[in-house]
């Protein structure tokens, strides 16, 4: 496993490798000499200049947060560091030695490990098998040394600060736990530099906190960590140093305690508060009314928090936020209102337009004028391989195809109109969705759902994985739609987003709506109610 710094009984090959990784021959803890230094790096993809002369350094034992909008060049920079791409120009040195990685394997051998957003774990295997994937321990008889691997896995998990049984299957783990296993796996390969790409994107607040602890533990062990994030609120809690990129350039460094507003200004060139449009002055009739409503799923699923006692009202023209921790039942509330991938019955008061309604199936929801945008556009929102036009008309095919026949003219008109309205770029109906940036993909999902003219829109984490600039556009769109009478019920784990966007915020805890607040509530209050503390006190 991890070799000690003062281990002199190393194989010559290992010595060379460790030298390259900056472990030997640079004194005990020399933080002055950077572990990794890039200078003047340029990279072009076709006509796009992804990097236009970037300098970047990382010292060992440092957590260096890298911020940037989609297309700012972060991913390209990481691709170069981790050997997935070659720079067109510029140099890279690892512990003072110039390096040029041709393949990710070479970078890996030098101790640079990247943990991508889509984790490369095998769900069907247990944790230990995943940690030893590709370099399994074998007994002298050629069989697998299960005991040894289990013990080793325990050590690795402990080092990563994780308390999980290595015999658990990865498929049974939550996202946050998988993330930690992926980090432990990086430790197993003796990582010297760890690149984390939005590790908290799919994590709850508690899971994220756990991840931070693990990352800080790695830092104490002298690992250099490059931490890419969209969540500005994480920065002061994790960063030693912050670098902001925009348009293929480093626009500046910031101290870890830099105010969010400053970071936003560096990222997009305007302030955070300006992202939120002004609120509506009036709201209309009640659209959706839940009065002590309860949902009983046909099949109980572990970890699926059924709505147990939900009371809330969404009026026409109103944006209502759903706050709560992961597992509070926000997503479950939305998906059972829409009848998506869950079967069961609603009990108690469920009314649309003041009249009792039988929700629980997609058909019923759509007939009632309800649209739903999930938190995962790639797996449930879009057909990535299809064109923008095909995706946009997907929810309105019945209208687009009189007598069951495709009407190319009608389709073209609607799609062009939608691209215009939602400012999707490029404005090409024939572009494949997979080639669009995250923010533009999200706009396509919105366009698709809104083309069907819903009266109530259910949104789950509408700005997840979307950069700050696109977030602002989505907020503006939502408010504009609300001004036209659309009711919105939006679940989000980003409290500043809910506070900035919503007219009212309902807090959930354990499948129960515990409190409702009008605009102007503080983050601290929301957090207290989310944790369920206010109930006990």
């Amino acid at each position, binding site marked *: 496993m991890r070799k000690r710094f003062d281990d002199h009984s190393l194989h010559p090959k290992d010595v060379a490798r460790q030298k390259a990784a900056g472990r030997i021959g640079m004194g005990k803890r020399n933080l002055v000499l950077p572990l990794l230094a890039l200078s003047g790096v340029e990279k072009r993809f076709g*006509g796009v200049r992804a990097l236009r002369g970037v300098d970047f350094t990382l010292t060992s034992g440092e957590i260096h947060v890298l911020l940037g909008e989609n297309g700012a060049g972060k*991913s390209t920079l990481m691709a170069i560091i981790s050997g997935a791409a070659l720079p067109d120009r510029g140099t890279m040195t690892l512990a003072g030695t110039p390096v040029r990685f041709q393949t990710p394997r070479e970078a890996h051998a030098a101790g640079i490990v990247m943990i991508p957003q889509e984790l490369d774990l095998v769900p069907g295997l247990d944790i230990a098998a995943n940690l030893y994937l590709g370099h399994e321990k074998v007994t002298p008889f050629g069989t697998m040394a299960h005991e040894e691997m289990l013990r080793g896995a325990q050590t690795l998990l402990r080092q990563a600060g994780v308390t999980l049984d290595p015999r658990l299957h990865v498929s049974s783990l939550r996202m946050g736990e998988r993330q930690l296993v992926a980090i432990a796996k990086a430790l197993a390969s003796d990582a010297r530099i760890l690149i984390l790409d939005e590790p908290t994107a799919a994590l709850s607040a508690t899971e994220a906190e756990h991840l931070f602890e693990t990352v800080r533990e790695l830092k104490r062990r002298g690992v250099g960590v490059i931490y890419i994030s969209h969540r500005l609120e994480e920065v002061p809690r994790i960063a030693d140093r912050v670098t902001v990129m925009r348009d293929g350039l480093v626009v500046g460094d910031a101290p870890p305690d830099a105010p969010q507003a400053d970071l936003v200004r560096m990222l997009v060139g305007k302030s955070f508060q300006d992202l939120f449009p002004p609120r509506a002055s009036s709201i209309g009739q009640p659209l959706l009314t839940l009065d002590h409503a309860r949902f009983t799923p046909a099949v109980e699923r572990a970890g699926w928090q059924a709505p147990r006692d939900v009371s809330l009202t969404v009026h026409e023209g109103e944006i209502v936020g759903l706050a709560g921790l992961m597992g509070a039942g926000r997503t479950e509330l939305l998906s059972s209102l829409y009848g998506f991938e869950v079967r069961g019955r609603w009990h108690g008061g469920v009314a649309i337009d003041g009249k009792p309604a039988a929700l629980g199936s997609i058909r019923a929801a*759509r007939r009632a004028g309800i649209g739903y945008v999930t938190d995962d556009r790639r797996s449930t929102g879009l*057909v990535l391989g299809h064109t923008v036009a095909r995706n946009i008309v*997907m929810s309105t095919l019945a209208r687009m195809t009189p007598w069951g026949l495709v009407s190319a003219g009608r389709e073209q008109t609607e799609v062009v109109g939608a691209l215009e309205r939602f400012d999707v770029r490029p404005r090409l109906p024939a*572009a494949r969705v997979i*080639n*669009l*940036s995250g923010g533009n993909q999200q706009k396509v999902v919105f366009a698709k759902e809104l083309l069907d003219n819903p009266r109530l829109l259910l949104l789950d984490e509408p700005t997840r994985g979307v*950069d700050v600039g696109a977030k602002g556009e989505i907020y503006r769109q939502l408010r504009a739609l609300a001004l036209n009478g659309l009711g919105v019920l939006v679940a989000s784990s980003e409290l500043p987003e809910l506070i900035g966007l919503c007219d009212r915020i309902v807090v959930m805890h354990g499948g129960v709506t515990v409190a409702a607040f009008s605009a102007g509530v503080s983050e601290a209050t929301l957090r207290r109610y989310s944790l369920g503390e206010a109930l006990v006190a």
Partner: protein
Amino acid sequence: MTESITAPAPAGRPRKSPLVYLVRFQSLLGLILVLMGGIIFSPRRHGHILFLNPENIANIVRSISETGILALGMTFVIIAGGIDLSVGAVLGLSSVLTAALLVNQGWGLGTTLPLVIVVGTIFGLVQGLISARLRIQAFIVTLAGLQAARGLALIASNNTFININYGQGPGNAPPAFAVLGERLFGDTFPVATLVFLVLAGLATFLLDQTRYGRYVFAVGGNERAARLSGIPVRWVKISVYGLSGFCAGIAGIVHAGQFSFGSPNDGSGYELNAIAAVVIGGTDLFGGAGSMIGTIAGAVMLGALANILQLNDVSAAMQLLATGAIIVLAAGLQSLVARGDGSTR
């Protein structure tokens, strides 16, 4: 952030490499190549190119009509993200059923043919229903369906080979049925091929010009997204097997008509030729992408290739090898493009 590491999505227009066009038209290009190869390598007699001899061309288009019809239905199934291994066996069942009803039962064409088509369709629908309801992979269900259809064919034929004689009275089939083995337009154009072309036109229309076709693409492209958008996913997934069974039923009738007999072993292995035609035609085995015109070209290409090899007295073994190579080539080209696109397939 969803941009991929290897190919950051440029903010501008999506790039199109020549490779994309190569694949979009791969079946047509392949077809042209095969036809050119046919002309070049064709044996000549008295200065005439045998490959282009009307008789030979009639042979080619006749030989592809059955697998072609199967491939039409298969295209819907594969675009919707499924697979249907039962079509060859259903062809056999339909062929035997046609012969048995016409000859042994003395039924007329007006009752026999619709019934056979309905049986094929229902067989397909049942497979779709089982796959969707019980959530069993289509591969398994249709593999089981293959066995079941062969079993039914044995029952229907009483475990024998049924010869179709034409004429009046018991034990004879109506002479009109023999038309399937004949040719039109001065003995040049096989009727079986005409059936294929008519069905191909209908299938192309259904896939490209109707709401149903859009549903099929959406379901194969992303089932969950399709369901969220209010598309009747389950119905689409069941119905494509109905279409496939419908095509297999017609193919069985064509088979019985062309060869004037029905045998329970008819059409064995045809499902693989049908799948090959679809894949060569550029349809994605993972679903969500493909074209009917590609399938048609793929079927013609396979038929022409087999014909050239036969004309040159190439052994059956070499013919199989050549077909295998072409399938790999077509699939390889597709995966090249998928990688160039940065798509995750």
